[in-house]
């Protein structure tokens, strides 16, 4: 059982955390309401212990927001002795019970047990499964009355299966239930505990594989022979199985036939989600999205997407035309729609933009590629990204990752005006989050990854891994990665890092103005700049210089020295004489290598002086350095 404790008093929080951990609960602690909310949106909890007076988001507001977003876990308020009004407000806001500080710990623990009993998973004092018994009051498990000598984690593991009989738990689901976010075990740890538990059950005489592995899904208590046969109404179990198989196969065909329709339905919900985010949803779109969510809620479960139906149902309820949504509810709708996309994509192991013609990614939104096989983590990132207006494409395996990368990159071969062949590479991705373990597989994959990272302009690539060794970090650095995370990840941190890296490497918003009377040189520079997405204004006639400067408003100016009517040095002087342009980086590009002219250029206010012989990658590098430095200085002056 996993508990979230939201308490700003560190002393109380520490004491409570220790008491709860001694009772074998997994505990996460948040020191303010906003952090608590972030954790609720990231992980799933069985119960929340909530202080009333909290910084950033107080307990009452927290509770109201929780219930308005349809979170159903029990909430136990922690209130001060003389706060009768808080108790009433808290209970009215959706809390289930309260305890008064200073705590009587036995009472607090008893109230926690009572609330957990009311939850979806009833907490009976003694749990039974055939000859297995688990007495949660005594913290004791037995098989045929023989006590099992279990470690605390094995005990909680067995309890999890006994409380959720027939339910399959993936390794990540087990981690979610039994470990707190501060603990960093990997999925192999679960395997080890399962192995230990199986061994002890076998020693006590339980059948082999009492906890069975469901291939590709996880673990559950093994169904007895009688229960493993689906209930029938013909009495013929064999023919019944055949009927079920035929029905499922038939439903798959029906799904295939109508998958485009479901892609369109999702597209409608995404339009509404986007419109809600920008505050521009009209009544007609909302009505349409409400009806669409209703249809999806009714149909997806029939085709095996139970979670999809649940998500669509939530969206339907939130989009009811008579309902007014506050900011947190709008964010919740956006997240649920994003989660619904993921359900549809992962359930059929396909990219959704292949399903519906209208389901392809919105070109106007940044696109993040997540190469990750932990679907739970991917889902958390997707819903958080949707909240921030990012689209996520998920590649759950290496093949899908390669297809996504290939699809995102295009190489165009062209000839410039001088007849030289050039090629430019463009991609539609704005960032990649990659599970490094994928690329342990082969060297070819590493090469492909290096190609991906070393794009023009560079693509922000973030690695994550369960192993935090020097070797992994060096490998990632050699590949040119921009950030390295060790799991477990907090999605909001990942997205913040991607935004930071993007702002560092993304220069596509920069504007460069080039003044030169040689059209061939202007064409060469244009070819050099275009792969970077830099906006370029070229001026052949110096008379047009000032107008272009004022209207284009460049971030960098590149000047030739010798031109008709006005020289570059004169233009540089008039720029420097205008206060508005005193900080504009000015670079000279000239055939003259005379130091006297170079000196004049610097006296006029130039930042750099280059010979035209360097036109090529070196010029680009110099310009990018100047642009980055200028951007850095600007941001420092803003911060100051």
């Amino acid at each position, binding site marked *: 059982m996993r508990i979230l404790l939201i308490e700003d008093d560190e002393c109380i929080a520490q004491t409570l955390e220790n008491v709860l951990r001694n009772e074998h609960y997994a505990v996460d602690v948040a020191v303010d309401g906003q952090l608590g909310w972030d954790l609720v949106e990231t992980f799933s909890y069985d119960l929340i212990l909530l202080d009333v007076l909290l910084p950033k988001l107080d307990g009452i507001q927290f509770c109201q927001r929780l219930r308005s977003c349809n979170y159903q876990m029990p909430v136990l308020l922690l209130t001060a002795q003389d706060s009768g009004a808080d108790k009433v407000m808290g209970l009215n806001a959706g809390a289930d019970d309260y305890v008064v500080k200073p705590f009587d710990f036995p009472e607090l623990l008893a109230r926690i047990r009572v609330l957990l009993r009311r939850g979806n998973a009833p907490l009976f004092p003694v749990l039974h499964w055939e000859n297995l018994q688990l007495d949660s009051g005594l913290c004791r498990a037995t098989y045929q009355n023989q006590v099992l000598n279990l470690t605390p984690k094995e005990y909680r593991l067995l309890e999890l299966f006994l409380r959720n009989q027939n339910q399959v738990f993936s390794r990540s689901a087990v981690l979610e239930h039994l470990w707190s976010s501060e603990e960093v075990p990997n999925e192999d740890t679960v395997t080890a505990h399962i192995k230990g538990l199986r061994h002890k059950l076998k020693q006590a005489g339980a059948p082999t594989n009492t906890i069975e592995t469901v291939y590709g899904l996880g673990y559950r208590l093994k169904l007895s022979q009688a229960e493993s046969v689906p209930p029938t109404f*013909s009495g013929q179990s064999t023919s019944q199985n055949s009927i079920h198989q035929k029905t499922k196969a038939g439903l798959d065909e029906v799904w295939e036939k109508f998958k485009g329709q479901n892609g369109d339905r999702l597209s409608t919900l995404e339009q509404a989600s986007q419109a809600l985010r920008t505050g521009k949803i009209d009544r007609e779109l909302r009505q349409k999205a409400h009806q669409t969510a209703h249809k999806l809620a*009714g149909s997806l479960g029939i*085709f095996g997407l139970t979670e999809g139906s649940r998500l669509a149902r939530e969206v339907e309820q939130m989009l009811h035309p008579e309902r007014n949504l506050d900011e947190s509810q709008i964010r919740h709708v956006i997240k649920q729609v994003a989660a619904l996309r993921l359900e549809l994509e992962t359930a059929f192991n396909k990219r959704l933009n292949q399903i519906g013609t209208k389901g392809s990614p919105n070109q106007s939104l940044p696109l993040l590629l997540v190469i990750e096989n932990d679907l739970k983590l991917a889902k958390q990132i997707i819903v958080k990204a949707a909240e921030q207006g990012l689209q996520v494409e998920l590649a759950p395996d290496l093949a899908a990752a390669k297809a996504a990368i290939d699809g995102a990159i295009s190489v165009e071969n062209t000839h410039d005006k001088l007849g030289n062949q050039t090629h430019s590479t463009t991609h539609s991705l704005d960032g990649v989050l990659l599970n490094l373990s994928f690329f342990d597989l082969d060297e070819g994959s590493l090469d492909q990854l290096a190609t991906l990272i070393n794009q023009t302009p560079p693509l922000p690539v973030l690695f994550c891994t369960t192993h935090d060794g020097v070797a992994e970090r060096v490998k990632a650095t050699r590949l040119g990665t921009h950030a390295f995370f060790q799991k477990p990840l907090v999605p909001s941190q990942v997205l913040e890092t991607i935004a930071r890296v993007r702002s560092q490497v993304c220069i596509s918003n920069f504007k460069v103005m080039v003044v030169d009377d040689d059209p061939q040189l202007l064409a060469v520079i244009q070819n050099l700049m275009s792969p970077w997405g830099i906006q370029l204004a070229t001026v052949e006639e110096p008379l047009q210089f000032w107008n272009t400067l004022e209207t284009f408003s460049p971030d960098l100016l590149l000047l030739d020295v010798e031109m008709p009517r006005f020289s570059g040095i004169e233009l540089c002087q008039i720029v420097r004489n205008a206060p508005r342009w005193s900080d504009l980086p000015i670079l000279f590009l000239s055939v003259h290598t005379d130091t006297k002219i170079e000196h004049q250029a610097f006296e006029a206010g130039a930042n750099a002086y280059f010979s035209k012989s360097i036109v090529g990658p070196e010029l680009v590098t110099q310009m990018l350095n100047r642009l980055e430095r200028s951007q850095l200085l600007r941001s420092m002056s803003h911060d100051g």
Partner: protein
Amino acid sequence: MTNKRILIIDDEADIREATKLCLEVAAGWEILTASSGIEGLQTAASEPLDAILLDVMMPDMDGLTTFEKLQANPKTQNIPVILLTAKAQPAEQRQFTQLAVTAVITKPYDPLTIASYIAEVLN
């Protein structure tokens, strides 16, 4: 299971086909379909039927209006009607159960047991 003729009235083609498939495969019943209330009324009045599965939310003529018209027609008033609905609110559910319908099935239904449930209800 004894042979039956069932009419499914639902405007959503995927649900119509999925439900038809589930009932044909599991029970071997003969299934007729209609994509609107009006088409359903015509079929119900002209074909011998053992039951009608009727969707509630449909454009033009909704399920409840269709049900009223089935009740008003002597040719169709004795055909058992099972409502299919994705309405999840308790108030709406209560409203449906107060009607003279034989049963209410909530969507999404379990495709592997819907046939046995309908057989049980009709028996």
